[in-house]
């Protein structure tokens, strides 16, 4: 083999240029990079939450803060409602991946059906979150406030905060918990909301036959990546707010 043909052979390797070395379509790589940067944002928020919690000598007990099932019971059922929310989100992730799978087979009807199921799951999750936010707001938690905000008498503050603490109470801890809870679940909820909007747009494009004309359903895969990422973030939010 002479050196010239050897040179040609070198040029055929994935990293020799002129082709995508990762053999991933451009839009998909960009979605991955966006998700990586978004993962850094969420990580920063959660790491800050962890550091705050680690620095305090006491912290609200999640089993005491989240123990209601709205419309069913006011207290006594820790983790049940958030369990339902987690199940809804995992389930909608499954329907999304089934939509992607149907897209590979270019079965327009199935893609439509699974996308609709995913959107319903997204709305159900958002509804649950709205109910939970309303419930906590009703108890006195909000951005910058906790149930003891505005009270001056030490006895009244203890009475307002003790239901949420297992042991010692702390006004600052309850305030930080409140701020970080609404900021982080709010940022996640905003992602779910935009995910639902994007899903609806893609669904309309599927119904319109745009991807059938294009010959592939890669767009469904891209929005699927985003949707799974939202589910992934929830897995971490669930652990650090409700379990730990």
């Amino acid at each position: 083999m002479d050196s010239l043909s050897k040179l040609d052979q070198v040029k055929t390797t994935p990293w020799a240029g002129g082709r995508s070395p990762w053999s991933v379509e451009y839009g998909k790589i960009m979605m991955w990079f966006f998700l990586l940067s978004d993962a850094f944002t969420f990580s920063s928020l959660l790491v800050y939450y962890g550091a705050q919690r680690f620095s305090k000598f006491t912290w609200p007990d999640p089993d005491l803060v989240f123990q209601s099932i709205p419309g069913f019971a006011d207290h006594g059922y820790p983790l049940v409602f958030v369990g339902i929310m987690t199940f809804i989100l995992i389930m909608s992730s499954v329907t999304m991946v089934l939509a992607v799978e149907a897209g590979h087979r270019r079965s327009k009807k199935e893609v439509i059906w699974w996308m609709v199921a995913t959107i319903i799951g997204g709305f159900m999750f958002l509804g649950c979150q709205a109910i939970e936010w309303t419930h906590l707001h009703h108890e006195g938690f909000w951005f910058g406030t906790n149930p003891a905000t505005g009270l001056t008498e030490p006895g009244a503050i203890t009475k307002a905060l003790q239901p949420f603490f297992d042991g010692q109470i702390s006004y600052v801890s309850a305030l930080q918990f409140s701020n970080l809870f609404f900021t982080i679940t709010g940022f996640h909820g905003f992602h779910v909301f935009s995910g639902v909007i994007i899903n609806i747009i893609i669904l309309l494009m599927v119904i319109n036959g745009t991807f059938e004309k294009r010959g592939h359903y890669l767009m469904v895969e891209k929005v699927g990546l985003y949707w799974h990422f939202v589910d992934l973030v929830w897995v971490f939010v669930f652990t650090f707010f409700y379990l730990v």
Partner: protein
Amino acid sequence: MSEHNIHTEEHAHDEHASMSKKKIWSVFFILLLITVIEFIIALWVIPKGYMSQSVGNYVYIALTLLKAYYIVAYFMHLKFEKLGLQLSLSVSFVFIIYFIVLMLIEGGYLHAHMPLV
């Protein structure tokens, strides 16, 4: 352009082969099972005193990372992508690990030095 299209189609075909409906549902049941285990730990194992909260926290984090692996590898399909993409997306989290270490040191310092309020 047409070459690229052919390539994409082939790729799409490969993906279909690697992620069947059966596999999707088995990953779903794994995720559900891990979540159920977390609930059993939170509602039964720790309250009954079979495990301390601090040990439980490590178990939660391990189970969470396992769930994250299944979501990223199978649902987000990263397991079937090229090694280069897998590495560039996962190695970046070195920065987050560094950040966690930094913030835990900071939190530990504050824990020891801040007045109790």
